[in-house]
């Protein structure tokens, strides 16, 4: 029982833009009035719904491989010393699980979506998510390079493919479907990639990436999943890839789709020497197609580690940088690559990437469709989000940063011409209300009566980055978890999942294929529900 009074509330889901309003909380939910045992004097403070991260990599085989590969970073990073309320851990490029929960909550984020989980190792991902405290969680299942699904698509058996995808989603205890470089990761098993939407994939006769994305988008809608197809396009990171990205969006016209980390997919030029921003082209198409959402995957300068299911791209990055490279193939399902990386302002390619991430956030008109991410840890670590907010809200600061880049950059980017500045209301949309809506979380990113009492209270500050990095209070499910930088309590979060229906004969179809394709027995494959802490099952309702 908690009452927060006198705060300026930014609650875009209900059109509340800085009005002074009391918020009452009881049993983890927002209520009309309450006999408050605790009161927070929020006069002069700013109240936001808790942040929602639509796309991050915080748990599972890939990030855990990245942790193993970067001990040199752990040593220099922020250490969390154990206390009565807190486990020990390390921050940095690939934070440990407990630290991940503390860092997200410490920044006012209360819900995170792990964006890439192979079904085969989903058990591992859930075990890690159980060790991420405070925040609520969900995860997306990798499906665009699964050989069983691809064979069905090639054979034109859409119905069966749909049921198999539904079965996989149930088995993984996932929340939605992720497609990474459709067909390209399967081709990587042949040492190849798949860069064009209408060319057949290595190892298949007629199946193309275009067929995969179209069918997966349709499957997601037919199953009524709360979150649309979450798509990492083909040809990530390559100069000139805007053509592939536009082609992909055209293939998906009329479908719901979430375009992940679009910063990596909006480049022009025909080589590293001529690479330029095509954020304007992306934004123009995107603005005209309201069934799409995107997150930016923005880049900030500094050290990080890149991890993606896009195996062939990571091999290229290893060859470009000569740094460490980890590769994980996941049987017939997907793959993964890990390469530490440093984004340098003096590097023209990196400078273009930095600009593209901001340009997309500034050129896309509707803040309800573009969300704040860095594709953690690929573009930068999630705990650097406040720096991006500052770049969005202060044009002067942005211009000062731009002045430090090589002069040649000016002709390759749109940023110098953009004067737009985000308001606090718009920030509340791109970091909370928007991603909550895109994920189909009706209880999140919303401060109306009956919604989850996840919220964050900031001090108004001319230093925007400091304001968002060090909230005054963070409240999760009605409990004060962060009090002026102190971790007060570390409750367990919930995990969201969906259980779409599938034809009961699907298991009979899959069982013999398991004998052929998998090294794990069919019975051992699905993740047991009792391994998951506080599972919360979301409805699948047919999408209109």
């Amino acid at each position: 029982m908690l009452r927060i009074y006198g705060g300026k509330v930014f609650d875009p889901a209900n059109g509340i833009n800085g009005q002074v309003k009391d918020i009452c909380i009881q049993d983890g939910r927002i209520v009309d009035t309450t006999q408050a045992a605790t009161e927070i004097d929020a006069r002069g403070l700013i109240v936001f719904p808790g942040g929602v991260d639509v796309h991050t990599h915080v748990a599972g085989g890939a990030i855990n491989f990245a942790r193993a590969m970067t001990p040199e970073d752990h040593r220099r990073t922020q250490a969390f010393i154990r206390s009565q309320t807190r486990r020990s851990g390390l921050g940095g490029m690939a934070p440990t699980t407990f630290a991940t929960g503390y860092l997200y909550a410490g920044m006012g984020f209360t819900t995170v979506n792990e964006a890439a989980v192979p079904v085969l190792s989903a058990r591992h991902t859930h075990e890690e998510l159980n060790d991420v405290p405070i925040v609520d969680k969900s995860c997306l299942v990798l499906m665009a390079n699964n050989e069983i699904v691809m064979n069905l698509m090639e054979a034109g058996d859409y119905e069966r493919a749909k049921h198999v995808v539904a079965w996989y989603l149930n088995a993984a205890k996932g929340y939605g479907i992720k497609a990474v470089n459709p067909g390209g990761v399967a081709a990587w098993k042949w040492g190849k990639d798949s860069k064009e939407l209408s060319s057949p994939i290595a190892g298949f006769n007629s199946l193309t990436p275009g067929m995969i994305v179209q069918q997966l988008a349709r499957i997601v809608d037919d199953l009524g999943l709360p979150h649309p197809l979450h798509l990492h396009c083909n040809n990530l990171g390559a100069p000139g890839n805007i053509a592939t990205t536009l082609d992909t969006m055209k293939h998906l016209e009329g479908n719901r789709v979430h375009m992940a980390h679009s910063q990596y997919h909006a480049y022009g030029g025909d080589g590293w020497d001529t690479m330029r921003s095509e954020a304007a082209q992306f934004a123009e198409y995107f603005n005209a197609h309201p069934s799409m959402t995107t997150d930016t995957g923005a880049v900030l300068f500094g050290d990080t580690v890149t991890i993606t299911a896009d195996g062939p791209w990571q091999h290229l990055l290893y060859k470009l940088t000569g740094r460490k490279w980890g590769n994980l193939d996941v049987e017939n399902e997907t793959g993964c690559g890990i390469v530490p990386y440093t984004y340098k302002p003096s590097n023209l390619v990196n400078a273009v990437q930095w600009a593209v991430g901001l340009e997309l956030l500034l050129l896309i008109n509707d803040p309800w469709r573009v969300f704040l991410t860095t594709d953690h840890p690929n573009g930068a670590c999630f705990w650097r989000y406040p720096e991006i907010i500052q770049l969005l809200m202060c044009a002067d600061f942005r211009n000062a940063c731009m002045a430090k880049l090589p002069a040649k950059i000016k002709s390759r980017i749109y940023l110098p011409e953009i004067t737009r500045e985000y308001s606090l209301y718009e920030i509340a949309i791109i970091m909370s209300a928007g991603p909550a809506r895109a994920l189909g979380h009706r209880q999140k990113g919303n401060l109306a009566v009956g919604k989850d009492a996840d919220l964050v209270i900031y001090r108004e500050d001319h230093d925007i980055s400091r304001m968002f990095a060090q909230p005054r209070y963070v409240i999760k499910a009605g409990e004060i978890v962060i009090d002026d930088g102190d971790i007060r309590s570390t409750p367990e979060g919930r995990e969201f999942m969906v259980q779409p229906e599938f034809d009961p004969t699907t298991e009979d179809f899959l069982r013999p294929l398991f004998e052929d394709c998998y090294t794990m027995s069919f019975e051992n494959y699905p993740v047991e529900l009792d391994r998951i802490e506080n599972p919360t099952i979301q409805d699948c309702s047919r999408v209109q």
Partner: protein
Amino acid sequence: MYWGGNPAECHPRHFTKYALMPKSKFLPNGRKDRTVVLVDIRETKSVKAADLFLQVRPGKDFELLTILRALLKGHDVGDREIAQTGLDRAVLEDLLSRMKASKFGAIFFGMGLSMTRGKHMNSAALLTLAAELNSFTKFVAMPMRGHGNVTGADVIMRWQTGYPFGISFNRGYPRYNPGEFSTVDVLVRGDTDCAFIIGADPGATMPRPAIEHLARIPTIVLDPHVTHTSRIAKVHITTAPAGIAAPGTAYRMDEIPLPLSPAIDSPYPTDEQVIKQIRAHLEQKPNWLPDSQQTLASQV
């Protein structure tokens, strides 16, 4: 390709279940569609399974790997350098041309490589060779781990602390330094005044000073069996064997977790039950940890 391992005796299911025999969409004839190479210092029982056996001179793995990497890049390598590995040029060139011509290569390396002269340098050289082969064809490399759920311990330590082993919590947060914080080093230095050992038998493998230290201090062992370590321990709690009489999870060598379903009941408690009980009793003691006072300093 197996290097410094003897799967026929140490990983008896590896040939049949994973690496050599399985038939698949692109390898319909199973073993016949594969080429198997074994590199080792002696003829083990695994030689019978191989198409090609390269007997490297003991302690010359690093040199052989480096020569292969040089030849792969088209550098000149002298006959004398090749001869010291115990092999000749024709064999190495044949091997490399087969590797480059393969559709998908996999190298599995064992403790014959990673724990002999050169140690982690050998592993690094082999991993680099595998990475560089990807300029020609798809190649991967993976270690063949020891017995027990060693991979599982690795995986969990990594997500909780960032490091796989050799971790010290002395300062209240994890620090890593193999050679300083590894179990054997801590014991040899006599830096610990209590030992709690689960699912391992250091008494059978560690050097004498380490074992003598274990015998000196209160050593507590959780193990289903009587072991070298349990004999010198002050306390041995017999537990149910995992996977046979105790449920749980084991991580396979490729870090895929498998659920364990016990086949029989045991009169003994599981490791997990024992640890939970110890923990519950410890929690009765006054908490010596500080209140949370450290603030979340912004990251640099």
